[in-house]
């Protein structure tokens, strides 16, 4: 599969690395060249050398998205550190470029839930933490 990851922080770079190791075509966009180094370190060798693609740019730059291969992407992951950026760019991927599978990381649980109802796949790390904490706390108190 062709996987496009926008935002290579801890989450994005980890998913990108795993996907590349699993033999997928992986393209990453990040505005910070430093995130390229993170990919190298996580992979244990040069990102491009291992077949990965990297484009410097911000999520809303059409040129960067096209250069990174959004028109060929089968999976689009929006994992920048901003909910608003992720929500906007993933809707662009969905509606304009018609990427078959679009996933957005959204920290705000309520908006993650609402956009999910609107047909956008959202992953909410905050909700996952809340669920796990509640489970752990209530299990302890028995």
């Amino acid at each position, binding site marked *: 599969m062709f996987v496009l990851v926008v935002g290579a922080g801890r989450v994005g770079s980890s998913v990108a690395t795993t996907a590349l190791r699993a033999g997928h075509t992986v393209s990453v966009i990040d505005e910070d060249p430093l995130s390229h180094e993170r990919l190298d370190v996580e992979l244990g060798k040069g990102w491009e050398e291992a077949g990965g693609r990297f484009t410097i740019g911000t999520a*809303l730059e059409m040129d960067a998205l096209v250069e990174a291969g959004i028109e060929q992407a089968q999976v689009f992951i929006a994992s920048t550190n901003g*909910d*608003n950026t992720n929500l*906007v760019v993933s809707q662009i991927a969905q509606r304009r470029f018609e990427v078959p599978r679009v996933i957005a990381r959204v920290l705000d649980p309520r908006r993650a839930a*609402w956009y999910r109802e609107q047909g956008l796949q959202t992953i909410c790390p905050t909700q996952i933490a809340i669920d796990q904490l509640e489970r752990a706390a209530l299990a302890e108190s028995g």
Partner: protein
Amino acid sequence: MAGLYVIIAGAGKVGWNLARELLEKGHEVTVLEQDRRRYLTVEQELEHAVQYGDATELWVLERAGIQRADLVVAVTGDDEDNLLICQVAKEKYLCERIIARVNNPRNLEHFKLLGIQPAVSATDLILRLIEHEVPRYGLVHLLDLPEERLEIIELVVSDEAPAAGSPIAEISLPEGALIISVLRDGSGFVPTADTVVEAGDEVLVVLDPGLEEDITAQFVGDSADGRG
């Protein structure tokens, strides 16, 4: 338009002054500002008409009473924020009227894609003013009504234009276009079929989008770029 309830996201220069104007006209206004210091400054004047909070968060919008808002205006300095504020206002809270500010004109296409209209870009407005003052392309967009699929444009009739010297009835305009006014020597009038169009006249044409080039060909001739 009396007694609207307007929520304004962003208490920058635009938001603050807009709030001031609307309050003076007797409307009810709540401004939302996420920067604590800016909020405190604005609060000294607007008092309870400004609230502290991030307008992209649903609870902040709800606290401001978005369910009963007649109009939501998103004028923060961040285009993603403005887009999403208007999107939830329209689609989640079913607010009938929204207005979004576009800071970077390159983002205008994203607002259009997600159905956020009208989206107002200062750069665009100034560009239009410049073109209106200096109509070097021969054609000025005065009004676009994308929902209604109508535009009004202004053209200056050039010497070599096919229409120059012809009565209105003989000018071959495409279907979907109508000359609504002629401005000559500083005054405007509504033309009749017999009105002869002269070089130097400014004509206002209402048209379906996409007909600009055909119309430009009639009034400006081939030399013009034809784009406003």
